[in-house]
Structures are given as C-alpha cells and as structure tokens.
C-alpha cells in the first residue's frame, strides 16, 4: 500500500494538465501575413483543416479547409485573436507554409517570427515565401492547378518540387542567415501569372526575393536566381535543374545538372585589398540535342563535348556575373556569403570591415571561374538523324 498510494496520487492529482483531445484542436496548415494599408496593422490569415471533410466514413460536401483572417499589432495577438474566431484551438505544429506579402517583407520579418521561436509555435522547417504583386491571403485560396484538396499542400508541393530557378527557403535557414554575419537570405517568390488561355491566373514559384538582414530589398528574375543558386548551392533545389541554350543554327541544347560544387575564395593583399574568386564546378549530362547531327567517330564526339562544355561555361559565367553585379549595384546586400567566407579565412580583416560590409561588398573586385564537365550523353552518343 505504501507504494501504491503515492503512485495513484501522482497520477490522479497531477496528470493531464496539458491534455488536448483531437476534437479540441484545429490543425492549421498554412499562414499568410499581410499588411492592412489603412491602419498599418498586420493581417493574419490562417488556413484550418476541417477533418470531417476528410472522413472515410461519411462523405462531405464541405471544403476540407477554411480560412480565418484577423488583424492585430503583434503575432501572438493575432494567434490569440484567431482562437476567438473559430471553435477549435489553433494548433500550428503541422503548419507547412508561411507566406508574407511584399509590404510585410519590406518592413522586416524577424519581429513577427520572434514569437515562433520563443514559444515554439511553428516548426522551423515551414516553407517561407514572399508574394509579389498580390496579397498573401489570396494565395491561400484554392488554386486552379491544385491537385491537392488543401491549398497548403499545393503550396508546399511547389516548394518541394522547386528547381534552381526558384528558392525553397525554410524558417530555420531564414533565422540562420538573417542573424548571421556576412550573408543575407533570399526567399522564394510566389506570383500570379496571367496566361492567355484561361481567365484565372496561375500561381508560380519562381525567382528570388533578396533580403538585407530581415528586410526585403528587391526581386531577382529566374536567370539571376539560377546563378544565385549556383554560387551558394545551399538549398535542396540548388542541385536540380537544366540549362538550355542555343547551339548551332537556332537549335537548342539542354544539359541536365548532376552535381554542383561552388566555392567562394577570399583573398587579401596589402592587408586591406579584398578580392574574391568564385569557383563553380558543375557536372552535367546531355538531356537533349535538337540539331540532329551525325557523329561518326569517338574523336568527333569528344570534340563536340568539349565545344558544349565551353559554350555552357560561357553561359553560366555570364549569368553569374549578371547576378553579382545586381547584388553589388542594386541591392548592396551580400546574398552569396562573401562576407562569411572572408570571416572564416581572414577573421581579423573581417573584424575591420564588418560594420561597413554592405558598402565594401558593393565595390569588392571578384573573379569568376567556371568549370563544366559533361559526364555522359545519355543513351545516344550523337543524336537521332535521318539517313539520306
């Protein structure tokens, strides 16, 4: 008895304080943060799942999700206000994406994400995206191209499938890079694109939104984003994609990316003269050749391959130059991590320049070395060609 009584006291008197039955929680799958133009307050739109619509027993006419919007000044205020408006308590651990509008991003993101980290409301691997030219909440509506029933699944699918022309950036990386010295984050950009075929616009994840610390300073197009990914290669999507460029008489050739190995090498001469060498090593394979040229011998094939490598190197080098120029001149933000590389190799030099790194970065000289190797040509040596 002496052992049993305290045991049951422990269970019956102290247990269950944080019990939450499944029927009490409202699972939030996506969040969108906008800025109310008149009042300047934040507007949070949360996408709750409606489990009964997913029931395997009773088929339901309801949409499997519903969205709730509230306005307020701070994130935790918004989260609480959301609970006032819906009959379930918000549960954010299964949140998949957080979308912020351009205006919110320009104001700075760390103030609103601070509570996520403090209270561990949202997991650190939610995808982060910035909308361009549209409100964030509009992305949470059901999209025309969505196979998933829930828009949150659609959005996280876009991030999962992204190639190097877009950016898949999660909350944890955003914290890391925005708080780190010598590097600035780049988030994925979600845009609506109107096509001529249909009345409804398509949602796109492409391009990048460059940040200076936690504030948005500008957008990059697809080519620039590709080059950004080649230089940094820190995202899961950086190693996926293909390079298409013209080759001989308006015919195109496509090379698939197999591996990529970039490195940024800082060099300091005379104590203060900082320069960088950006080295990019890519391994590619031939995915498509439109020119239908007959390749007779192995020797010819080697020549063709060499020629292709040279052309591809030129293509890549041009794009990389373009994006570094843009970062230096337009953004004045070190999105590639030049500063971080310098800090690792020359900490003393870094300490002397770190306070004015943005200005230093804008004028820093650099050299680009691209090395491309074509690993194989698929199952065809030359290409398909009709016999005369």
């Amino acid at each position, binding site marked *: 008895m002496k*052992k049993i009584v*305290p*045991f049951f006291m*422990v*269970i019956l008197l*102290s*247990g*269950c*304080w*944080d*019990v*939450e*039955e*499944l*029927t009490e*929680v409202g*699972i939030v*799958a996506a969040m969108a943060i906008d800025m109310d133009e008149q009042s300047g307050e934040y507007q949070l739109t949360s996408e709750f*799942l409606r*489990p*009964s*619509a*997913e*029931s*395997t*027993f009773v088929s339901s006419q309801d949409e499997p999700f519903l969205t709730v919007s509230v306005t307020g000044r701070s994130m935790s205020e918004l989260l609480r206000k959301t609970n006032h408006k819906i009959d379930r308590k918000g*549960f954010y*651990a*299964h949140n*998949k994406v957080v979308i912020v509008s351009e205006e919110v991003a320009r104001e700075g993101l760390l103030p609103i994400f601070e509570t996520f980290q403090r*209270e*561990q409301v949202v*997991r650190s691997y939610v995808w982060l995206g910035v909308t361009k030219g549209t409100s964030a909440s509009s992305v949470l509506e059901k999209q025309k191209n969505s196979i998933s029933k829930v828009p949150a699944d659609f959005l996280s699918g876009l991030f999962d499938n992204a190639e190097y022309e877009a950016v898949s950036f999660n909350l944890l990386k955003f914290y890391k890079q925005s708080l780190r010295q010598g590097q600035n984050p780049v988030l994925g950009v979600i845009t609506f694109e109107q096509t001529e075929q249909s009345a409804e616009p398509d949602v796109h994840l492409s391009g990048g939104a460059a940040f200076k610390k936690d504030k948005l300073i500008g957008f990059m197009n697809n080519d620039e984003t590709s080059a950004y990914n080649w230089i940094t290669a820190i995202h899961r999507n950086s190693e996926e994609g293909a390079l298409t460029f013209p080759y001989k008489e308006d015919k195109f050739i496509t090379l698939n990316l197999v591996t990529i190995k970039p490195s940024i090498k800082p060099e300091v001469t005379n104590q203060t003269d900082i320069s960088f060498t950006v080295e990019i090593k890519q391994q590619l394979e031939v995915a498509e050749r439109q020119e239908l040229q007959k390749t007779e011998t192995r020797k010819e094939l080697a020549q063709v391959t060499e020629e292709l490598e040279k052309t591809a190197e030129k293509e890549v080098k041009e794009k990389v130059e373009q994006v570094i120029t843009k970062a230096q001149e337009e953004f004045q933000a070190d999105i590639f991590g030049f500063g971080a590389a310098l800090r690792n190799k020359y900490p003393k030099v870094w300490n002397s320049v770190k306070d004015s790194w943005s200005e230093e970065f804008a004028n820093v000289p650099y050299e680009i070395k691209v090395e491309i190797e074509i690993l194989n040509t698929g199952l065809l040596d030359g290409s398909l060609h009709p016999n005369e």
Partner: protein
Amino acid sequence: MLNRANFCSVFCIYSIFLQIIQLCMSTRDGVEKMRRHWKIRKSNQSQQPKQTNHTVKTVLEDNRSTLKSIFKNSVDIQFRDLQLKDKKNTHAFICYTEGIVREEFIHDNVLEPLLGIDLLEEKINDHSLVSYMDSNIIKASSVDKTSNLDHVIENILRGQTAIFIDGFDSALLISTESYESRGVEEPDTESTVRGSREGFNEVITTNTSLIRRKINNPHLIFEEFIIGGNTKTPVRIGYIDGIAKQETVDELRKRLESIETDVVLESGYLEQYIEDHPNSIFQTIGNSEKPDKVAAKLLEGRVAILCDGTPFVLTVPYLFIESMQVPEDYYTKFQFTSLIRFFRMIALFLTVATPAVFVAAATFHHEMVPALLLTTMAAAEERVPFPILLEALIMTVIFELLREAGVRMPRPIGSAVSIVGALVIGEAAVQAGLVGAPMVIVVALTAITGFVVTAINSAVILVRFFLMLLAGTFGFYGLLLGTLFIVAHLSSLRSFGIPYLTPFAPVVLKEWRDTFVRLPLKNLQSKPRSVLRKKY
C-alpha cells in the same frame, strides 16, 4: 507551452517515481528476502488430520476392525476373507480400493495361487509363511512387507492390495495399481507445425517415462516428494546430474520440502509456493506440456518439476528470454528462426505499447503524428464523445472479455462469440459512434501481437493497462517512466539465483547466440554450462 510551475510539478513526479523504482530495486537480494518469506509461510499450521501410529497386530480381527474404523465403511474400500489350506486353516483377508486396482490381476495373480496352493504339501512351517508367499506364491512385480499400518492404508488408497494373515504382525502390499487416464495426446496450449506431437498427461509415471524416453542417459535422475497433507500428491524433480547446477537442485529440494500445505492439485500450486518473487507479475518458473521442450531444458541444465494430476511440468530456472523461444525454433532453419525471433520481439513491444503510444500521441503529442494521419485520426474522432484514453480502455477491456469468454465457454458455442466479437470490436462499434476507426486497428494489432507472445500473456496484459493509464495522464513522458519502472523491476528479478534478464542484464555476450537470433546448432553446443552454471 511549458511554464515554470509545470516544470516543477513534472520534476516532483519524476523524483517520486525514482523513489518507487529505488524501492523496487532494493529487492535485489531476492533469494534472502524470499527465504524470509518462506519462514513466515512455514508458520502457517496445516489442517491435516492427526495420525496416530498404527501397527499391524498379530490378531487378524484387530487389524480388520482398525481398518474398518478408519475407513468408516467407505463403500469403495473392499475386504475379502480367505482361508488358506495349511495345518491350521489360517484365516486371512485382502483389502483394496475399487476402481484404482485391476481386479482380474488380483484374481489371477493373488487369489488364485493363494487359494489353489496346498500349503500342507509344500511343508511350510508357520513362521516362514509370509516370506514364502512373498517369494513363491504371489505373482506381482512388486511385493512389499510392512508392519506399519499407516503405510498400508496410504498404499491401499494408492491402488495397492494388502494381505493380512492371522498370526503375523506384518502385511503384504502388492502393487496392483491401474486407473483410467488420458492418453498421450497433442497438447492444446503449445501447438507446433513441426516437431513432436506428444504431450504430457495427468499421470506422473507416464510423464516421467516420456522424458526418460527422450534422454537415454543414466545421469538423468528423478527424485520423488510427497506434498500436501490431504492430497499426498507425488511430485518428482528431474535433472541431469553433472549438467544441472548442484546448487539449483539443492535449493529446489529445500524449497519443496519447506512447502506446508494440505492441497496440491496442479503444478501451479507448487509454482506459487516455490517462486522467487510471489509479488511480481512476471513468472520466474516456466511450464510446458511438451516432453521435447522439457527434455531440451533438462539438457540445458535446468531442473524439471513434475506433479501428479497435471500435464504441466515446471522448469527452473526460468529466464525472460525463454518466453521468446519455442521448440520449433531449433527444428527449422536458423535464418528463418532468427527472423521469427525478431518478429516476436517486435510483437512483444507492440502488444505492450501500441495502445499507450496511440493514446499519448493522440492526447498530448499531436505534433509527432504525420499531418495527414492526424487529419484522418481527427476525422475519425469527430463523432466520438469520449476521450481517447477511455476509448482505448473500453476497447481493450472488451477484447479481454471476449478472450476470456472464448477460453471459458463450452466449445459448441464458440462461433457465437466470434460473431459477436467481430461486431463489437469492429465497424459496428465505429458506426455506433463509440470509438474511432483507428482505435479498432490499434486494438486488433494489440490482440494479434499478443497471441504471438502467449508465454507471458498474463504479465503483458497487466503492463499494457499500466502503460495505457500512464500514457493517458502523462503522455510519452509517463510512457517512458512506466517503461523505465518495468525494466528496473525486471532487472531486479531472479529465478533460482539467476538474474531474470540474463543474458541482457548482466550482459553475457556469448549467450546472445540464442536470443535475438539463433545461430546454427553447431554454434549452440556447450550451451548449458555458461549461463545456468555461472554464479551471480
């Protein structure tokens, strides 16, 4: 969202748990404690009737009246008077219990020669009559001359026939036992696909012979004990001298001798008197109905305890790992056996923890469930009015009821229970809105995996409820504490001096060859000595 007060309360709980665990760990010197326990039990005076020392008297009528007064004319005790053809026409009578003797045998081998012989011709003097009868007249394999009347009575009740002769102060006991018994049939409890189909029956001599036939070794020794004041049940221990550890045999003898009870009807009685930890839910004595299994255990150095009246033979020492081993493991290929062993281990964990994990994940740790599964789980719970812990309890209790009903009920109505059972633990329960669909799967999984580890079913059921309650009140934290508690308790157990969790705790790496995997038979040789003979 954790705040400081909650952390404090959690810490308090943790420290209390540690204390409980420590209390349990303090029973580590199990043997000593158990000995004390027996002493207490020994003081319980048994209720058996007092026996006065009767002896066989010279006057025939005295013996007869003593027996009649003791048996109080019980109808199944038969007396038959005889008159021998000798000088004095000596009177005699025989006494036996009907039903447990072979009457034709008595007629052919006792009465006929006794009455047919002309003792005058044989020139037997009066004094040597009894010994002459013993050696020349009675045709039976065992004839015993005794003057102790109590001994005579005991053996009459066992099926022997006693002959009393006027003028002699001793009686002859002739073994004429014969009684109805079940044949050697296939046991229901431990069915195998491959292997011997023999099973023990209720007769101890048959059981001994079944073991003896498997092990043709002169060092296989059986010793007999008579236990139980009223039942006088024959109990035999069997061991192979030289393989079994002498300390174990001595300890077992001592424990059996110290039993003071009136009734032993089944080996389970013995088990509860001699086990190391009567208060633990885990059994530290094994049992089996299969001679091949018991023979294997004897050859490994264990000691068997056979009890008359039951086909269940006990084996000691019993280690936890034995509940994961079956005879078939050694009859089939080792690769397959190793896989099956692995599945059995998984089954053990699943059957103990599945409902608890489900309850914990669904009430406390939604973030640990994949989002899609959580949605379907929530959808299933949408129309259920009860908390998940209650649901789990309802379903597991219903399952235990069905299982118990299936065991107890008469065979012909078995199908009725399975039909009702399928309705209760099935879609009907879900559609009635009593439980969610995932809970049905959880209970089904628990049940199926439970049938894989039937050897420790009783402990598993108790642990399952214990962990379920903890998981429902503290979540995974409680589940972890509960598991810790169980493991601590298990490692504190001993069976006849050997730690229960051997070879895992203490680690005997060499013996792992027959635990998670079974190595080929040639690597299992010299098996018995190390674990069972080692001193801990």
